[in-house]
């Protein structure tokens, strides 16, 4: 139901008294403009325009309802779990195609039908029909097809080291990329029993690949909707799998067990709901699974184990894969041969070396828990014999930051990882960054972290963030303070920097890379102050646990800019860079934006996008020329699908790309 304003109704009363009229004109409807807070609440939580709900709630709130009731209601809306939350948690790892988990080389081709109407499936080269073998393929067990012998090979499961010149000490399996025609050295492997490793065609291949992404999205949605503990996402054997995703899980089991006949495991797959269900995965040993960490989309997205571990830490602890401060001299000194990860236990040396330990203690000790899962290029199933036994430690910042020990299994890793304070903080961060965008302050993160610690609930965390957003105050205007710079700067340096920056004397850029330079001297080099401004302006400094509010950060940078640049063009340009950075407003995630465009156009756009936007986390979701262009293209296609042309098309595109629909930020 649309709302009408009181003033409009009064106007109608006056105009309506028309004596002598044969028929009163229909009352003109004047809509109450939607409450922008309500509108943003819906966009942010449901990824939808929800026009009717927005109108209804705007009316209710105008009549005195408490908007926090709406925030509470929307914090339980399942659409947040399915449309928004997966992107907040997994953004860079959801979109890229997992070419390792579903090797591209295992797509069959088909010959033209012969006179008898028979065609033959092949992997490498076609063969004579008479040579082809009859096989019941996994996609239709009741109807055999003809396959070239080299594309079948049901009993070939592993590659010997002579058959592949890949890494020496890793088990090599036929179900992997190196067993596929894409990376094979010679024709060794085929599609296996019931062609279980292969796809019939590219359409089927794409469906299988999409199923891996679905597993991540739907598992997240399920955990959110049922308000399961957040940790459930990353621990245990259970995920939400479509029928295709379940097929891929069974495929891994078939590989693990090296079955020559896959049929018994595939026969009742038809009973699995096509849309999926929440169910445990198969496993051969205790602790083999760790929630979504062992879902192929995350586990096999990248080839090697360190990269895999880097993904895990970013997802679990918001720990980015950055590493800075290495010098050629030191690297030459410490590395004598080889990739130390693969040389017996020499990775331990790397994990404790200066410069290296900041990443490698975490990564290299971390991947010991996952050794049952090989390098993604070499094998796609769990190999119990490759796993380590016993218990192992987990490190966070470096080799001096041990966080406990657990069984050397994926489950052992996950239980330790989710018990760390960084996990709660990270989950809270993902929510706060989305809801408060650039207005998020340290206390917002702290408060939502407390909610996560206490409730382990995404819904409660979201509710808390939404209410903070409704209550947040506008940021103070940019400071025009002209206080004596050095004294003011000195106070801020003491408060935020000196705790770490007191040892190394700054020399010059080539000799000071990555060192915590001493900030205590009265006179600091200009080059150092410049770097300081850059690091603070763009949130690289100060490092946790020291934090700065936006106002403090802005003031710090302002002081530095005033100190470094003369008034006029130089200062104005520097201020524009350090404090503006050409960033546009924070916007919704690109898929939410597509959804909004389609709702406005009332049609879906037939475009399968692969934009870089999908690889980023919420802090990078801002109005860029790319975002504007992509949403415009999407709007064009959606409006055309709605049969709009001429001026109607122009109006539709304009309406569907209206920036206010996409801009994200505080709800005040």
């Amino acid at each position: 139901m649309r709302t009408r304003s009181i003033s409009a109704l009064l106007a109608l009363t006056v105009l309506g008294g028309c004596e002598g009229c044969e028929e009163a004109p229909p009352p003109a409807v004047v809509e109450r403009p939607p409450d922008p807070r309500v509108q943003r609440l819906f966009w942010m939580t449901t990824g939808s325009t929800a026009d009717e709900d927005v109108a209804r709630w705007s009316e209710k709130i105008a009549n005195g309802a408490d908007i926090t009731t709406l925030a509470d209601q929307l914090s339980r809306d399942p659409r947040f779990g399915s449309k928004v939350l997966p992107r907040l948690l997994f953004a860079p790892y959801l979109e890229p195609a997992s070419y390792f988990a579903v090797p591209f080389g295992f797509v069959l081709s088909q010959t033209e039908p012969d006179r008898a109407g028979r065609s033959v499936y092949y992997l490498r080269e076609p063969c004579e029909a008479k040579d082809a073998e009859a096989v019941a393929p996994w996609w239709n067990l009741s109807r055999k097809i003809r396959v070239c012998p080299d594309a079948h090979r049901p009993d070939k499961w592993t590659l010997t080291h002579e058959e592949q010149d890949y890494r020496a000490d890793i088990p090599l399996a036929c179900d992997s990329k190196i067993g596929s025609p894409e990376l094979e050295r010679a024709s060794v492997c085929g599609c296996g029993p019931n062609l279980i490793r292969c796809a019939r065609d590219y359409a089927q291949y794409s469906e299988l690949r999409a199923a891996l992404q679905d597993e991540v999205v739907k598992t997240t949605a399920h955990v959110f909707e049922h308000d399961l503990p957040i940790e459930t996402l990353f621990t245990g054997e259970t995920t939400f799998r479509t029928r295709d995703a379940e097929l891929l899980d069974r495929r891994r089991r078939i590989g693990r067990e090296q079955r020559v006949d896959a049929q018994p495991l595939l026969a009742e797959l038809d009973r699995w709901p096509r849309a999926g269900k929440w169910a445990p995965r198969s496993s051969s040993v205790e602790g083999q699974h760790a929630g979504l960490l062992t879902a192929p989309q995350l586990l096999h997205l990248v080839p090697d184990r360190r990269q895999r571990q880097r993904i895990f830490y970013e997802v679990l602890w918001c720990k980015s894969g950055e590493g800075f401060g290495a010098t050629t001299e030191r690297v030459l000194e410490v590395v004598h041969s080889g990739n130390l990860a693969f040389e017996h236990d020499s990775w331990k040396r790397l994990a404790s070396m200066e410069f290296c330990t900041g990443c490698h203690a975490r990564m290299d000790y971390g991947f010991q828990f996952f050794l049952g899962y090989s390098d993604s290029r070499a094998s796609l199933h769990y190999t119990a014999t490759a796993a380590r036994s016993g218990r192992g430690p987990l490190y966070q910042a470096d080799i001096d930051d041990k966080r406990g020990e657990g069984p050397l299994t994926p489950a052992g890793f996950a239980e330790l990882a989710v018990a760390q304070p960084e996990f709660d903080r990270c989950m809270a961060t993902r929510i706060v960054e989305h809801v408060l965008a650039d207005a998020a302050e340290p206390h917002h993160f702290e408060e939502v972290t407390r909610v996560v610690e206490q409730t382990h609930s995404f819904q409660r965390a979201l509710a808390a963030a939404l209410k903070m957003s409704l209550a947040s105050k506008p940021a103070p205007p940019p400071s025009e303070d002209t206080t004596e710079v050095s004294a003011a700067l000195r106070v801020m340096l003491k408060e935020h920097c000196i705790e770490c920056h007191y040892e190394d004397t700054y020399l010059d850029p080539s000799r000071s890379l990555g060192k915590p330079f001493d900030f205590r001297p009265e006179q600091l080099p200009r080059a150092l102050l410049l770097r300081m401004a850059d690091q603070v302006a763009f949130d690289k400094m100060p490092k946790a646990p020291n934090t700065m509010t936006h106002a403090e950060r802005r003031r710090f940078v302002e002081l530095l800019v005033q100190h470094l640049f003369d008034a006029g063009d130089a200062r104005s340009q520097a201020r524009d860079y350090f404090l503006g950075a050409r960033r546009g407003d924070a916007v919704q995630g690109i898929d939410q934006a597509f959804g909004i465009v389609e709702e406005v156009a009332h049609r879906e756009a037939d475009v399968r996008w692969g934009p870089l936007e999908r690889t980023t986390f919420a802090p990078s979701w801002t109005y860029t020329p790319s975002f504007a262009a992509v949403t415009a293209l999407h709007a064009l296609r959606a409006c055309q699908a709605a049969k709009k042309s001429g001026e109607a098309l122009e109006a539709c595109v304009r309406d569907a790309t209206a920036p206010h629909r996409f801009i994200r930020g505080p709800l005040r």
Partner: protein
Amino acid sequence: MDRRDFLRVAGLASASFVTESWPSRAYATRREAPRYVVLVLLSGGHDAVYTTDPKTKSELAPGLDFTSAESIVEKGGLRIGPHLAGIADYASRISFLNGVQVATANHDTGITQYARLKTNASPRMPSILDLIGADRDGQPVPAVYLGTSHRSLYTPSFFGGTDQIYFAGNDLLEVGDTTTPEEQRVMAKALAEHARSEKARGLSSSAKGTVRHLAEAGAWFQRLSETPAFKKTRHSDDYATQALGEDLDRTAWLIEHDLTPCVFVEAAPLSWDTHVNNTPRQAHITQLFVRHFTRLLDTLRAKKNRHGPLLDNTLFLVGSDLGRFPQLNDMLGKDHLPQTSFLTIGRGVGGGRVFGATGQQMEGLPISLSTGRHPKKGGTVPVLDDIGASLLHLAGLEPERFGYNGRRLSFLFDT
């Protein structure tokens, strides 16, 4: 008539938003500044000993991987490694800079830094091309990124395409190729209108950013509607080769039609990250790159637009996020080294010269900031920030105002 007047006279209504809130260059009209800057990332780390810094056995410490003397090409004043031999015809126009410190052995950090030509950079920072392209001469967008796969390239002014392998190529450039001029004008009009209405709304810096970026996207579609469409050429059945070929073709198209002052090309599908079988893989991908890169140079050399011959107006910088360790590992691969080298060609490059110096372990040695050579005494090792500062200076921008504390390498560009 100054540059702003020119823009107004040219009637670029939407472009005027673009230039309004971003101060103009200190000396934007300097003659030596290239009209186009192309930054190419050989993703993963090229091997200097086979490309820009070939060394024989006697020049290196025992046990290190070396280049055979007969495979080194000496031409036009350059000593060219065997993997780059295909570019020898351009030797007199090319310079190398070796031994550049990047302070990281990590690809993520390296790529973030490379796009900014600044160490310890943040993904939130504009790229160096965003800065150079911010104040431009009529082109619709500051920079176009091609073949991107890494999220740190999603800069605050990002505009461009993605790696065709991981993203299936369905980016705004590919989808944009399927639109008609009439459709492009519809989008241009909508975006320009939004830019105008948002301008009325906003006071904050982010609102200004939104206005600017809406206007840029609108101007892009407007210019696209007036520009011959990009035509794809079939180069290879191999997707990585095809992707690279297409991205370099598109680079030529962007320059020829003056659609942007800056292009970033991530040659991602080839991946120079050769931890296994380094030498043959480096040879294969670098030679493949060289084949397509020289084709691009040939194209630009043969063509001109209203601003002059294309190659003469374009500066190329080709480098990597990090380098390769000088010694082979047990898998005949090479691990990471926090040091890279650059190839430069085009406007501002003297050519036929090798700058920078490396020692017996391929380690970067100190150089004179004025000559680029290893002095008998003193000197300083070049750092990535020095390249950034020098490039900004060439482009007419004052590096410090953009947080660059690197030294100006006066030898690198002829200014």
